[in-house]
């Protein structure tokens, strides 16, 4: 075992570096400098702050905030130190354990992968499910108001009182079938040719005229409204915001730093990650919306017929895509709705008896 080593001593008061000879003793290091004579550093007074990685010199510090420092360029010094003083234990890094560290790093990589998948599949949805019920309705209303002022600006809204009354009647019928909710629900018809409908948090259902035009009966529209009402009642937007934050935090933890070009890559990853969450929200709105229709004794065949119509139109008219593309696979979706509708008990009651639907929707 080699006991004598060359290094440098820094006194912590000046920037001068003093060449030093170090001798490994059982109880400590004996350090000899040309000017300062000899001193003994006991092992238990020392801490090692560098030299745990390949290529680093060994750095030992002694003392409080502004310590004296000993630098030894040769990392083999550490191995001799452990041999000279076996009792020092993990206070000093042992280069012989570096291969074990590599193995642990590989295990950790597997752990990161497993943890990421678990957090994404279960952790974030669970967090969102726990937090969402505690978000005040007033916040959702604020968020919804600003979304509606953008999505359905007052000058584009259909102001026809007869159509408005019909919309309100459909909605009231659906809501009466369920438990009371803290929301004041409103429906707007917006004069745009898009085949789409959406729900803003806090109680706003927006129907674009393009979608209204394609409905053949009030039952078809009732199915769409029930779906959108479920988005509001199940607080899907709030949940999406929480999941969005969760995914962002997860990605931040994975990459460490979120700066520069990496930020754009992360944005894509986050958008992809949210697809799964939004698909699940749509499925839930489908299932619960169908239950709502059945409870309100609305004929579920209307909604199914409407989806089938849109699916057929898809090839001919790309506009119809808007409503379906942000949602689960249309074929799968229709099949699920059909199986849910099969459990219907009792005869349906017409939604707007005696109304001429095709004339009604032309009023805007």
């Amino acid at each position: 075992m080699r006991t004598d080593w060359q290094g440098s001593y820094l006194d912590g008061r000046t920037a001068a570096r003093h060449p030093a000879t170090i001798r490994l003793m059982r109880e400590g290091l004996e350090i000899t400098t040309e000017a300062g004579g000899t001193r003994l550093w006991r092992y238990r007074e020392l801490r090692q702050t560098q030299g745990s990685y390949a290529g680093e010199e060994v750095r030992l510090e002694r003392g409080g905030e502004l310590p004296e420092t000993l630098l030894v360029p040769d990392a083999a010094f550490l191995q001799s130190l452990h041999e000279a003083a076996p009792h020092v234990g993990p206070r000093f890094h042992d280069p012989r354990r570096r291969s074990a560290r590599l193995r642990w790093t590989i295990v950790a990589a597997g752990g990161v992968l497993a943890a990421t998948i678990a957090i994404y599949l279960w952790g974030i949805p669970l967090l969102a499910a726990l937090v969402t019920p505690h978000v005040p309705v007033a916040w959702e209303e604020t968020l919804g108001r600003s979304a509606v002022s953008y999505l359905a600006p007052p000058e584009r809204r259909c102001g026809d009182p007869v159509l408005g009354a019909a919309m309100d009647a459909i909605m009231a019928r659906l809501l009466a079938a369920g438990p009371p909710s803290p929301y004041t629900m409103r429906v707007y018809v917006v004069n745009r040719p898009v085949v789409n409908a959406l729900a803003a948090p806090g109680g706003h259902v927006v129907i674009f005229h393009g979608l209204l035009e394609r409905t053949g009966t009030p039952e078809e529209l009732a199915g769409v409204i029930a779906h959108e009402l479920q988005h509001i009642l199940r607080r899907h937007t709030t949940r999406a915001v929480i999941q969005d934050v969760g995914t962002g935090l997860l990605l931040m933890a994975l990459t460490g730093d979120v700066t520069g070009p990496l930020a754009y890559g992360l944005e894509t990853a986050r958008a992809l990650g949210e697809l799964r969450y939004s698909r699940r929200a749509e499925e839930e709105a489908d299932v619960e919306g169908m239950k709502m229709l059945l409870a309100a004794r609305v004929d579920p065949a209307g909604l199914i017929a409407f989806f089938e119509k849109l699916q057929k139109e898809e090839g001919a008219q790309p506009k119809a895509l808007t409503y379906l593309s942000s949602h689960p696979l249309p074929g799968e979706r229709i099949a699920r709705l059909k199986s849910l509708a099969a459990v219907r008990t009792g005869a349906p009651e017409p939604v707007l008896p005696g109304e001429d639907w095709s004339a009604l929707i032309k009023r805007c």
Partner: protein
Amino acid sequence: MPPSGTLRRPTFHGAGGTLFGIHVVNTLLTLVTLGFYYFWAKTRLRRYLFGQTEIEGDRFAYHGTGRELLLGTLKAVLVFGVPIYLLNIIRDVLDVPAPVKVGAGLLSASLLFVLFPVAMVGARRYRLGRASWRGIRFSFRGRVRDLVKIVLVGSILTGLTLGLYYPFLLVKRQAFMISNSYFGSERFDFAGRGRDLFWVYVQAILLTLPTLGLSWVWYLARKRRYFWDHTSFGPARFSCTITGRALLGLWAVNALLLVGTLGIAWPWVRVRNIHFAFRNLALLGPLDLARIQQEAQRVSTMGEGLSGFFDSGFDLA
């Protein structure tokens, strides 16, 4: 040309692979501790990066701890995060008279405005204060109030001149950051002038359209060069040789690496960035190390006033 032997370049010895290994372990611990390990992870990373950086045969050392970083962030959340959050609720959600809403909005905006200089000074004070070379600590002695003044006056003038004052603000801020930085008892100095950067800035604006925005890469390179070239330490001064073309090449390859590996290559990208910066940086002239004495700033856990409160180690990163 300076005589040989007086040109010093920093060297980085770190490897992307080691950095990646540190990052993997850090990530696992951060995930299983629900984020709490983040501050210790950051510290471990800095310790490694500082320890792998060498100039004049000696490496830097980082003395910060995860606990300090955690406490610093908690302070920031308490003094800025919570009040701004509450004020924003008053502004957006609560049913209160309009003047109260306006007042809350103004207060929140001004807190946010002050947060920036406080964070900048706090982070610099903390990071320099925890860095050493040859056992001598660096320190930052600038006061938050001075930077608030620079940023406040600078922002108003920038607004009044439709942005033309901005380079002057940048130079003033850089002067504040550099000339309050110390290594031991020796101060760094900054001799840049706003009007020099002004023309570079105007050029970048005028060339934005014809170059499809690429002129700003050249602007960034020139700004970095200008800042370093006017920074000195005692009789020695820094010299930077970064060019717009080299910077663009670096970024292009970095972007390819990151996109091609879905971000996994970032430790190697980080090493590339450091190598690039050091390759283009040198310290010219004599360095009288014997004159330099240890003069670390005592950092108390509690000071007077807001700035003192943060001086003890406030760092968001």
